[in-house]
């Protein structure tokens, strides 16, 4: 079982696995167009879609946690796991219910997640990276505050909701983590 992860600066924020019992909390952010804006998915409209997502994507995922405030899920954070020559890097993603934006919660969750995956995967993982839409300034600030390095602007990198987007590449190395 995954232990709950805590950190000093925001003691009420914890990370734990997200399960089907959390679907109603999940739907709060999943239905929010402000949250979905820079995500590949459209806002959810049915609880059943939420259940399917949790069952088929979240539960089998190598590393996917609920961001909890006083034990209640208000968002989610994940790190991919690659194989072969790509195993040295994992990609970070996160969402937070818009009611809780601007309080440093996501930054805290990112710091906790990065610390956890570097510890859990050992020497195999050297790099956690994140790709952020060039217009998503809030998320760029989260990563900067969490100690990530801005490596560059990747032009016309990916298609999001029918439009090709420029994405900013950020990374944090296991050797950077001493700063946190």
């Amino acid at each position, binding site marked *: 079982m995954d232990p709950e992860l805590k950190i000093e600066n925001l003691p009420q924020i914890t990370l734990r696995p997200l399960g089907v019992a959390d679907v109603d909390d999940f739907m709060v952010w999943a239905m929010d167009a402000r949250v979905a804006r820079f995500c590949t998915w459209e806002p959810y409209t049915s609880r059943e879609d939420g259940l399917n997502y949790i069952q088929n994507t979240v539960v089998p995922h190598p590393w996917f946690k609920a961001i909890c405030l006083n034990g209640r899920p208000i968002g989610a954070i994940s790190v991919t796991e690659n194989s072969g*020559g790509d195993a040295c890097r994992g990609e970070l993603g996160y969402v937070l219910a818009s009611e809780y934006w601007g309080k440093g919660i996501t930054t805290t969750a990112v710091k906790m997640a990065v610390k956890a995956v570097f510890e859990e995967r050992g020497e195999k993982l*050297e790099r956690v990276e994140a790709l952020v839409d060039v217009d998503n300034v809030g998320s760029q600030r989260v990563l900067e505050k969490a100690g990530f390095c801005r490596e560059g602007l*990747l032009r016309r*990198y*990916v298609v999001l909701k029918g439009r090709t987007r420029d994405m900013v590449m950020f990374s944090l190395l296991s050797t950077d983590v001493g700063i946190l």
Partner: protein
Amino acid sequence: MDPEMKNSNFSEIITLRPLEVSDVDDLMVWASDERVARFCPWEPNTKREQGLDFIINRAIPHPWLRAICLNGKPIGSILVTKNSGNDACRGEIGYNLAWEHWGKGIATKAVKMAVKAVFEEWGTELERVEGLVDVENVGSQRVLEKAGFYREGLLRRYVVFKGRSRDMVLFSILCSDVENCSL
């Protein structure tokens, strides 16, 4: 069938065409060379069967892989990966050239030809061709710069090959960077 592409500015003609099984001995010239393999994920080939295996199982089925030919003879290879879904707007370029032919602008020429070809053949879906080059592979960084690619940044500890993680320089060229872009 892909037409051969020619450039009349070269006194020696560089063309791109699909690799065939009959090219295996030419392929082995560069595939067995550790100078060529140095920044590649693979070890130099030692047996002809490895070359045949590559041609039959990787090169021929590949969405876009061509022999780089000098006066009709393969002296290297170049490929562009094809992605699907939300990643279909980008392809990744990779190339090898026999050591004997380094330093003459041939790889730059082949890259320019390949970029032009994929932007034409793949239509409006492809907007970006990118290249990832080991930070120590200065020669290949120069090839992409001369071919008109932009250096976007250094991706630290990005990939592991031959037992250690590498810093890779990311380059890209957009359809809109290339003359006569159809977009």
